[in-house]
C-alpha cells in the first residue's frame, strides 16, 4: 500500500489521541476513586449502585430510629423501675399501718409520708425526654398526670409511639401512662384516705392486695420494655453487620481498584512515550534529508 505523509501524521495524531484519552480517563478514576462517573460508564452496575446508596441511606434512618427507640425504652423502663421502688416503700408503710398497733397520729404521719411518695410517683410518671413526656401517649407535650387534691387525672391518650427499626418492622416504644399508673394512683389515694380514716381493716383486706396487683402490673410492663429493648438491640447488631456488607458491595460496584489503575496508568504512559518516540522518528525524515 502507498503510505503518504498525511497518513503518517494522521495516524500518529490519532494514536496519541487514543492514548491521551485513556490516560485522562484513568487519571479521572484515580482522582475520584470512582469507576462510574456517568451512567454510560457502566449501565449494568449503575442501578445496583443507586440501589445500594439508597439502601445505605435507609439503614442510616433505621439506625437513628433504633437509637431513639433504645433511649425511649430505656428511659421508660428506668422510670417504671424507680416507681417499683417507691411502691415497695408504700407497701411497707401500708403493712405497718395495717398492723393495728399504731395510734391515729402515727397513721396520719404515715398518710403524709404516703402522700409525699404519691407525688414522687406522679413526678416519675411525668418523666420526659427531650421535652416530650414518655407516658402521655401521643399527647407528648402535656404532662400526663395532674393531681388536684385527692384526684389524679390522666391527660394523655391511649396512643402508642412507634418506630420503624427495619423495613416493615415497627415496634411500640411507649406505653400509655393510664395503663401503667392509673390503678396505682387510685389505690394509693385510697390508702391515704384509709390511713387518715383509721380504716385499718380495709387496708389489710384490700389495699395491700391492690398494691401487690399494681406492683405486678408495673413489673410486667418493665419486663415488656426490657424485652423490646433487647429486640431493638438485636436488630441494631444485625443492621450494623448488614451495613458493612452493603458498603462492601457498593465499594465493589463503584470504587476503582487503586493498584490496578496505577498499573494501567503506568502501562498507558509507556505506550504514550513509545508513540511519541515512534512519531519523532517517522515524521521528521523525508528523501530530501538525503539529497544534500
Amino acid at each position, binding site marked *: 500500500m502507498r503510505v503518504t505523509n498525511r497518513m503518517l501524521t494522521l495516524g500518529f495524531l490519532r494514536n496519541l489521541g487514543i492514548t491521551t484519552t485513556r490516560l485522562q480517563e484513568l487519571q479521572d478514576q484515580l482522582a475520584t476513586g470512582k469507576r462510574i462517573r456517568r451512567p454510560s460508564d457502566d449501565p449494568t452496575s449503575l442501578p445496583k449502585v443507586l440501589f445500594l446508596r439508597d439502601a445505605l441511606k*435507609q439503614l442510616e434512618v433505621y439506625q437513628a430510629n433504633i437509637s431513639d427507640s433504645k433511649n425511649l425504652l430505656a428511659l421508660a423502663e428506668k422510670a417504671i423501675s424507680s416507681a417499683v421502688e417507691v411502691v415497695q416503700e408504700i407497701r411497707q408503710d401500708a403493712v405497718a399501718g395495717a398492723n393495728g398497733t399504731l395510734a391515729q397520729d402515727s397513721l396520719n404521719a404515715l398518710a403524709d409520708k404516703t402522700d409525699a411518695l404519691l407525688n414522687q410517683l406522679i413526678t416519675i410518671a411525668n418523666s420526659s425526654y427531650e421535652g416530650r413526656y414518655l407516658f402521655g401517649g401521643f399527647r407528648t407535650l402535656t404532662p400526663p398526670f395532674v393531681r388536684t387534691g385527692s384526684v389524679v387525672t390522666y391527660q394523655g391518650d391511649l396512643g402508642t409511639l412507634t418506630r420503624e427499626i427495619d423495613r416493615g418492622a415497627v415496634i411500640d416504644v411507649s406505653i400509655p401512662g393510664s395503663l401503667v399508673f392509673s390503678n396505682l394512683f387510685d389505690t394509693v389515694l385510697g390508702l391515704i384516705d384509709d390511713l387518715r380514716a383509721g380504716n385499718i381493716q380495709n387496708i389489710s383486706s384490700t389495699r395491700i392486695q391492690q398494691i401487690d396487683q399494681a406492683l405486678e402490673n408495673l413489673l410486667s410492663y418493665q419486663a415488656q420494655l426490657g424485652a423490646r429493648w433487647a429486640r431493638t438491640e438485636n436488630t441494631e447488631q444485625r443492621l450494623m453487620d448488614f451495613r458493612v456488607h452493603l458498603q462492601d458491595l457498593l465499594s465493589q460496584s463503584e470504587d476503582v481498584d487503586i493498584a490496578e489503575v496505577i498499573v494501567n496508568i503506568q502501562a498507558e504512559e509507556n505506550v504514550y512515550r513509545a508513540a511519541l518516540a515512534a512519531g519523532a522518528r517517522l515524521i521528521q525524515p523525508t528523501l530530501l534529508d538525503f539529497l544534500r
Partner: protein
Amino acid sequence: MTSAFFGLDIIRRALAAQKLALDVTAHNIANANTPGFSRQEAVQATTPPYTIPALNRPAAPGQLGTGVQISQIRRLRDQFIDAQIRQEGQSAAKWKAISDALSQVEVIFNEPSDQGLSAVFSRFWSAWQEVARAPETIAVRASLREQAVTLAGAIRHTYEQLGQLRDQVDYSVSVKVDQINTLARQIFDLNRQIANIEAVGDQANDLRDRRDLLVEELSKIADVTLSETSTGKLLVFLQGRPLVGETKVAELAAVPDPLNGNLRSVQWADTGQPVAFNNGEVAALLEVRDATIPAYQGELNAIAQALITNVNAQHRAGFDLNGAAGGDFFVGTGASDIDVDAPIKADLTRIAASASGAPGDGTNALSIAQLQFAKIMNGGTATIDDVYRGLISQLGVSAQEAKRLQENQDLLVEQLTIRREAISGVNIDEEVTNMIRYQHAFEAASRLARAYDEILDTLINELGR
C-alpha cells in the same frame, strides 16, 4: 529523410512536457496537506509517430517516434471509496449527534452523585422518618421543608434543563438547514464551472476535489443521493427531489411548527412540503428532539405526578400540629411546576405528621416515609425509585450504545480514509523522486539540444566550406 530540425522539435516537446510534469509535481507538493486534495499526474504519451500510412509515404523505414506530450493531467481518485466514505460518514455523524445529546442528558441527570435526584429523593424520605421520630419538634419539620423544597426544585430544574437542551437541538436543526443550503449553492456553482471547463476537454481536477469535499460535508448532514450528468454536473437529491438540479438549487427552510410546540419543521422553501431525513445529522437531531428528550421528560413527569398524588393523599389523611386536617403537601401538575404548597412553606405546623391529631403522633409521617417502598407507579408494579433507576439505567445503555456505534463508525471512516489516502494522498518522497526524474529528463533533453546544435553547426558551417 526527415528535416534537419526534426530532432530539435522533439527536444522542444520533451522540454515542455518535463517542465509541465515538474509543475504538476510542484502543485502536488504544495497541496500535500490540503484537505480533499487528490494528487495529480501528468500523463506522458508519445506524440503521433511519423509517418502515417499513405500512398505517397517516403520509402524510409518507419515509424519514427516524434517525441512526447502530456496527454492529460488527471487526478488519482477512487469514486467507489468516496461513496463508501460518504455512506459511513453519514452514520458516523448521526451517532455522534445522538451521542453528544445523550452525554448532555447524562450531565443533566448528574448520576451517580450526591446532587442527583436519586440522592435528593433519598434525603426527602429520610426527612419524613425524622419527622415521624419527633413530630412535635419544629427543627425536624424545618429540615423536612428544606428537603422537600430541594426535591421539588431539583425535579423542576432537571425538567427545565431537558427543555433547554431540546431548544438547543432545535436551534441546531436550523443551523444545519442553513448549512445544507450553503453547501447546495456552492456545489451548484462548482457544477457550472466544472461543466464549462470539461466542455473544452480539460480536466477540472481541483474543482472536482473541492466539490467532492463539499458533497462529503453535505452527506454527513443529510441522506442525499447523487448522480453525475454526462457534462460533469453532480446532481444532489434529497428524498427523490433534486436539491442541486441542473439549472437551479431548491433550498430548504426550517419553519416553526405550531402543531409541534413551535419547534422547527424542515421543509422545501418553495412548496412547503416537509422533508423526511433517514440518516445523517439532521435525522439524529430530529430524533433526539422529538423522541429521546420528550421520553425522558415524560418519565420525569410521571415520577413527579406519582409523588404529588400519593404524598398529597397520605398528607390529607393526617392531622397537623394544631390538630387540623392536613391539606396538600405538594402543588403542581407535574415535573414542570411541582412545588411545596405555600401554607406549608409559611407555617411548619401545617405538616400533617399525626394520624390521630395528637402532637406526639408521627404515624402519618411514617406512612408518607413508607411511600418510598410503595409500588405506586406503572399500574402498581414499581416504586418511584424503581422507575427512576430504570430511567437512569436506560439512559446509560443508550448513551453507551451511541458512543460505541459512533466509535465504530469513526473507525470505519478512518480505515476508508486511509485507503483513499493511499490512492489520492501525496507522498513527499514519491514527489521528490518524480521531481528528480523529470529534472534529469529535462537536463538530458537540454543536452540533446546541444548535440543537435553541434550537428547543425557541422552541417551548416563546416560542410561545403
